[in-house]
């Protein structure tokens, strides 16, 4: 009889890094399906391009830089998927591929691979693309009818009468608010109720419900609050994320949006717009909760969440050209993560406070 000698504990929870990654991917699927449903086949093409390029980049970087990696652990796949979720649906596939490669190599591999990176890789990819090809990155497609001819269009080109029109674009709700220098929530709802006009002159009417389910312009995976919430509840239930980051992020944005959102104070409709019209839910539940790049202490995570919420609102409200601030807000807070961890060590059992 040959007996193994190991250090205790001798049993382990069945959850591994692989389970965590694939569970997060699973949690993103509803939002992915909704994105494909509303934006068409081109969204699926962007998602697949991002995932495949991320896997290829992971493999090549792993071999060249001689770092350990495992394509099946789901981490590269998840990075690709998350990047795709924060790209416009009609992003040219070559741009999507470059973004994905940057995300993996600059965002992760150069730091030493899984677990070592400082910034959220997917957001590094997005920030890189936004700086390099701002025109493509701010060209938003309107939603299309499910399974219609336009739905199947891979390039975003549509047929109108006898004309073929290059990528139709239309403002996102938040972008529209900024472009038009709207002053209040009521003003916004009146305008979108009448409809936003896309580049071909077609009118797209929007109501509250459209904003909640995701029938509005935006990035592939960010528009459907309902789908993202389903995923988030799953992750919370599985214990992969905790409330510490998403709750303060969302609450901060909601409060700031409510109080300072429009030109007059206390505008509840502005709170709604800030919650449902941008990338807040995707950011708060899936980007700001990236384990590697966020604090490990409970208090640290709460501070991180507040910081994200505050910066998101400040960028949305005060930046000149960016209608949305989720990406940069989280990247900026990522930079503070080591500092936050350093100053928020939990009180050790039996030390300090309770034992006066």
């Amino acid at each position: 009889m040959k007996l193994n000698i190991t250090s205790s504990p001798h049993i382990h929870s069945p959850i591994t890094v692989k389970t965590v990654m694939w569970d997060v991917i699973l949690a993103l699927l509803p939002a992915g399906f909704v994105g494909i449903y509303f934006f068409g086949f081109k969204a699926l093409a962007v998602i697949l391009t991002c995932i495949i390029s991320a896997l290829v980049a992971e493999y090549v970087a792993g071999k060249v830089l001689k770092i350990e990696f495992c394509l099946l652990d789901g981490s590269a796949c998840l990075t690709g998927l998350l990047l795709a979720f924060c790209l416009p649906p009609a992003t040219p596939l070559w741009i999507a591929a470059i973004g994905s490669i940057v995300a993996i190599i600059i965002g992760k591999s150069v730091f030493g691979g899984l677990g070592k990176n400082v910034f959220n890789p997917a957001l590094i990819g997005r920030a890189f693309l936004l700086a390099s090809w701002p025109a493509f990155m701010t060209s938003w497609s309107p939603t299309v009818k499910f399974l219609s001819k336009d739905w199947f269009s891979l390039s975003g080109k549509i047929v109108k009468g006898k004309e073929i029109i290059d990528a139709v674009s239309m403002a996102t709700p938040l972008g529209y608010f900024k472009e038009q220098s709207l002053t209040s929530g009521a003003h916004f709802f009146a305008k979108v109720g009448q409809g936003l006009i896309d580049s071909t002159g077609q009118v797209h009417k929007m109501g509250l419900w459209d904003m909640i389910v995701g029938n509005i312009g935006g990035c592939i995976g960010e528009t459907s609050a309902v789908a993202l919430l389903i995923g988030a509840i799953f992750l919370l239930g599985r214990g992969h994320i905790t409330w510490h980051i998403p709750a303060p992020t969302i609450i901060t944005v909601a409060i700031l949006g409510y109080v300072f959102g429009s030109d007059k104070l206390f505008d509840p409709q502005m709170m709604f717009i800030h919650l449902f019209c941008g990338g807040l839910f995707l950011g708060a539940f899936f980007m700001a909760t990236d384990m590697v790049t966020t604090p490990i202490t409970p208090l640290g995570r709460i501070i991180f969440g507040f910081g994200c919420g505050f910066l998101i609102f400040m960028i949305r409200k005060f930046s000149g050209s960016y209608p949305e601030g989720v990406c940069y807000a989280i990247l900026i807070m990522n930079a503070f993560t080591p500092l936050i961890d350093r100053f928020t060590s939990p009180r050790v059992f039996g030390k300090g406070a309770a034992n006066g």
Partner: protein
Amino acid sequence: MKSLSFTGGFHIEEYKGSTEHLATEKMGLPSKVIIPLSQHIGAPAKPVVKKDDKVKTGQIIGQMQGYVSANIHASLSGTVIEIISVLTPMGRKSSAVVIESDGQDEKFYDASENQNYKDLKKEDIIKTITDAGIVGMGGATFPTHVKLVPPKGKEIKTIIINGAECEPFLTADHRTMIEFPEEMLKGIDIIKQFTGAEKVYIGIENNKPDAINILEEKSKAYKFEVVSLQAKYPQGAEKNLIAAIMKKEVPSGGLPLDVGVVVQNVGTAKAVYDAVCLNTPLYERIVTVSGNSIHKPKNIIVRVGTEFSEIFKFCGDFSLEPAKIISGGPMMGFSIPFIENFSVTKGTSGILAFSKEFSQEKEKYPCIKCARCVDHCPMWLMPSKIEKLGNAGLFDEAEKIAALDCVECGTCAYVCPASRPLVQMIRYTKSKIIDNKNR
């Protein structure tokens, strides 16, 4: 009843189903016993028998050395064949007395009952407990006569009886509570009488409702309070048990006595009864034999010194080839290298045998800073950070973030999705910190 708990910890799969409803079985006398002289925390006992001596059950064969030590008794009657060197479950070398049974089990002591413990003087009680070689039977094996006498300036106001049994698989304490409640309660009463404590709590995890019911009913006469605890690991760790029941934190580096509490395991309470009321020293105990390799999992009453190999035979041998055998629970127990010349001691609460599939190590990954270890640490430490500092040789830094407060309960390593060897590394780091201090 509302179940109390502490902050941190994790509900670990319990695996208690295969033995929790099985009544204890008395294992027959083994043909020989190998009794280590170091079964407790403190100085090993000194052998007072030699080869060819005849001994009787309950006779002292190892004399305690100094105050923090414990007597060792013969667990059956027969002849001393030799004194050998063995490995104890804690990984220490110890000399051990080998006794060949004469099959008579002739008692050395007068087992006539004395239920009138109320008239006993304090000196008599503590002398009996000391002579009987009683140690903490939850696994820590700290000599009970030391634990019950507080140093000057400290006072025992509260006694907590630990019936949490939070280790997966183990059901020995559970069965003790169900099958020997009267004995246990009398043992507790003796401890209470001796220490002069005002209050007694019996803490039991709520996955043992039968034990809670029985003890609630029977402890009314004694005015002990039964407390239902959330089934969560490590609910039975002294400091966490006190935190759950009394909402008090034992200071870092301190003892339960610092908050006026002494914690005793249910098995220890029964051993105190046996010693005081039945004159019986500690030479047998209840052990849970379980794990997926065991053909017939059981709770058994077994003599100290019985070889593991004998116990496996009694439990119908292995149904699956074992790849790992553990003395104690799966979270804090020790994996052992062989089953011959390896015997049950006073602290052996469980013997588990796992197949290769069951004991397979998980895939290892780099730390992804998921913070599960931080969220679940019952001592509120940052295990992943201590591991990293220890790996980098930064022991002073590790000490600053309270590495020495780690109780090695294993919760962090259990929940870690990256399978980091957290406990192992923290143990190493702690030993380095202590080495550096002693230099």
